[in-house]
């Protein structure tokens, strides 16, 4: 289709220096884990990048004790302005080492360098910069004149935005005066370990940030540890349920950012070309590994054929391949396990009667890949219209009236995000009001900012990250 072929424009990986193995970051030191170490691989090539320590329950206990000590002796008693200054330092270090973080993130996660460079890393730095400023202004959060930190926060984060999710968790926790034990996802631990190095460069006191790598058992040990005061989790709704059960009956405060199945609603008066860009951005950003992805396209019936034709034309120009190539639009699927799930749900979509469309073009021979995929003739009962695929798979449904659009959009156990495309302001505000979703993007999609609260309704979780709301999740007021 294109007149000129793109020459490869790979970002150099020489900027990163990956050690042959990594330990846990506990009490300011890298230490061996007592669990069985595991490989972290590059999902675009299946190359083993390094060996990473696995934290056992005993390791988690060491980390929690270190965090408790730091909370009681250094971080808690510290002047709030100084806590803020440490966070400003961290923000600056992330900016200074941005290229290194971006390359490492793309290597470990498989996401295009264009996204890790322009979205993940800048937003991570912005989060620390934003919350740094809150550290000495907590009496203005809205929890009374003397809000108190909760203590030790146990945080478990997913693999889709490894560094950014770390920032969303660590920055508000520290600004509020807590200390943290963070478990990164087992397929993407490397930027969290590089972040540990940043903590050392910032001279952050030992024990304030502890990073314990591992799989589900390690996460469970963090969540269930008796001396953890706050649990924050981003991940699947199934695991969220288990965590909510595990903390039941304790005094632990809990926030959950879980799955989604966002409706992206396109009305017949929408500017079609802009809407198509938004649809593409909504579902193919980060290979669709996005809890708030616009995975259900609700298009008004009268413009269905026109939108689908334009969408297919646009998808035909997306470049799938080497995550480190600056031209790449869609990178690798994060793991073999996730690829299997995407394939399974796509096959079910076809078996249930939806029409699968994928653009022509070859995928790389090694690594985990899935082409951008559009299902039309999807009914609301199909599993691809209900289940979170967490991949580059779009389900298209139609509607005739605004009421039908709202009813179909809200017909989900999830309620994380939604999109509206229309030129009519009053309609946008009305529909935004009626959608049961925590984030509504109107004539845009997948925008994030540290000042902007993010989080779900219904089974997409509770609590918000970002803004004043995100800080309140790590504080208690006089009446709490």
């Amino acid at each position, binding site marked *: 289709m294109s007149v000129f072929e793109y020459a490869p424009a790979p970002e150099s990986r020489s900027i990163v220096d990956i050690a042959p193995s990594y330990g846990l970051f506990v009490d300011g030191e890298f230490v061996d884990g007592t669990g069985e170490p595991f490989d972290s691989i590059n999902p675009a090539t299946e190359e083993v990048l390094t060996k990473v320590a696995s934290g056992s329950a005993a390791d988690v206990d060491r980390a929690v004790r270190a965090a408790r000590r730091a909370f009681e002796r250094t971080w808690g008693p510290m002047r709030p302005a100084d806590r803020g200054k440490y966070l400003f330092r961290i923000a600056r270090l992330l900016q200074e080492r941005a290229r290194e973080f971006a390359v490492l993130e793309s290597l470990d996660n498989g996401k295009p360098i264009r996204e890790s460079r322009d979205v993940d890393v800048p937003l991570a730095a912005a989060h620390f910069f934003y919350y740094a400023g809150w550290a000495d202004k907590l009496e203005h959060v809205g929890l009374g004149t003397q809000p108190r930190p909760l203590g030790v926060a146990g945080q478990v984060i997913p693999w889709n935005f490894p560094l950014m999710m770390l920032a969303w968790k660590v920055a508000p926790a520290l600004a509020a005066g807590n200390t943290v034990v963070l478990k990164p996802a087992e397929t993407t631990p490397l930027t969290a370990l590089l972040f540990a190095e940043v903590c050392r460069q910032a001279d952050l006191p030992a024990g304030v940030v502890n990073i314990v790598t591992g799989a589900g058992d390690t996460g469970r040990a963090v969540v269930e540890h008796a001396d953890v005061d706050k649990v924050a989790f981003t991940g699947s709704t199934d695991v969220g349920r288990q965590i909510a059960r595990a903390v039941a009956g304790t005094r632990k405060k809990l926030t959950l950012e879980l799955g989604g199945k966002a409706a992206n609603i396109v009305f017949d008066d929408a500017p079609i070309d802009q809407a198509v860009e938004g649809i593409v951005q909504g579902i193919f950003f980060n290979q669709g590994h996005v809890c708030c992805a616009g995975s259900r396209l609700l298009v008004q019936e009268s413009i269905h054929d026109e939108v689908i034709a334009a969408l297919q034309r646009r998808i035909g120009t997306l470049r799938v391949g080497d995550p480190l190539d600056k031209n790449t639009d869609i990178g690798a699927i994060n793991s073999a396990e996730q690829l299997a799930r995407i394939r399974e749900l796509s096959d079910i979509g076809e078996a249930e009667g939806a029409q699968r469309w994928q653009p022509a073009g070859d995928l790389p021979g090694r690594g985990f890949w899935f082409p951008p995929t559009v299902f039309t003739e999807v009914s609301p009962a199909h599993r691809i219209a209900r289940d979170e695929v967490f991949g580059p798979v779009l389900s298209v449904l139609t509607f005739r009236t605004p009421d039908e659009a709202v009813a179909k959009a809200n017909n989900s156990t999830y309620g994380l995000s939604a999109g509206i495309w229309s030129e009519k302001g009053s309609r946008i505000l009305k529909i935004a009001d009626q959608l049961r979703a925590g*984030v509504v993007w109107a004539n845009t999609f997948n925008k994030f900012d540290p*000042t902007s609260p993010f989080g779900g*309704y219904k089974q997409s979780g*509770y609590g918000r990250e970002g803004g004043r*709301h995100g800080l309140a999740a790590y504080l208690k007021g006089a*009446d709490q």
Partner: protein
Amino acid sequence: MIGNDRLAVRKTYKLYVGGAFPRSESGRTYEVTDAKGHFLANAAWASRKDARDAVVAARGAFAKWSGATAYNRGQVLYRVAEVMEGRHAQFCEEVAAGEGLSASKARAAVDAAIDRWVWYAGWTDKLAAVLGGANPVAGPYFDFSTPEPTGVVAVLAPQQSSLLGLVSVLAPVLATGNTAVVVTSKERPLPAVTLAEVLATSDVPGGVVNLLTGDAAELGTWLAEHADVDAVDLTGAPAHRAMEFEREAAGTIKRVLRAPTAEPDWTADPGLARMTPFLETKTVWHPIGL
């Protein structure tokens, strides 16, 4: 209450579901006594089916109540205080009997309960400004956050404070635009039924509040696991069941307001702590451009 030569007409205490006063579909009742153990009334003993009917009613009422203007909701809640004031003596009598309070202490509790409605009535049109606002994002977007009701809230009302405690847990749920299914104090349910009569005549749309007299230990299970309940307030849950209810609530990721270790001092300034657990934050983005 009664003249010397006149035989009093006694009240039948029933449930309040969907704006109507049904008996329990189960036909069950239980005996309610005063603090000294003397018979007061037979109360309806709500069943699982009653709880499920109440959830259906609360869900049905949600769109209208949450969609009403904040000003309107405030006026409706203020109206509850007005109508309560007219029944002041009746509430005093029921509270005094059920809680074993002196007349002056009962009066203080009723006064505080009425004033609490007024306090929450004044909150309805201020929450959005206090809890929401514009977010200064780093880009050409108008971005704002507003608090919204989470939906249907199941409330296990406090067991001790039968009126002030009840109003203190119910009013914040309504002020934030939610609809409620309330399980009253088991042993002291009578002021709740009288409150239902006040609600029914105070412009509160039917189904917005549903009051079930009965056993929180029994009904709590059904409400905590009910898929169409969005949040549970476990304040009046029996201590030995609260953890189990919280675990059941996890099945559908319900918002949970945990039971306090002891029943709180309901005369204290409530703050926002009973409203924020039942509020969602919605953030809306729109590009700015020509």
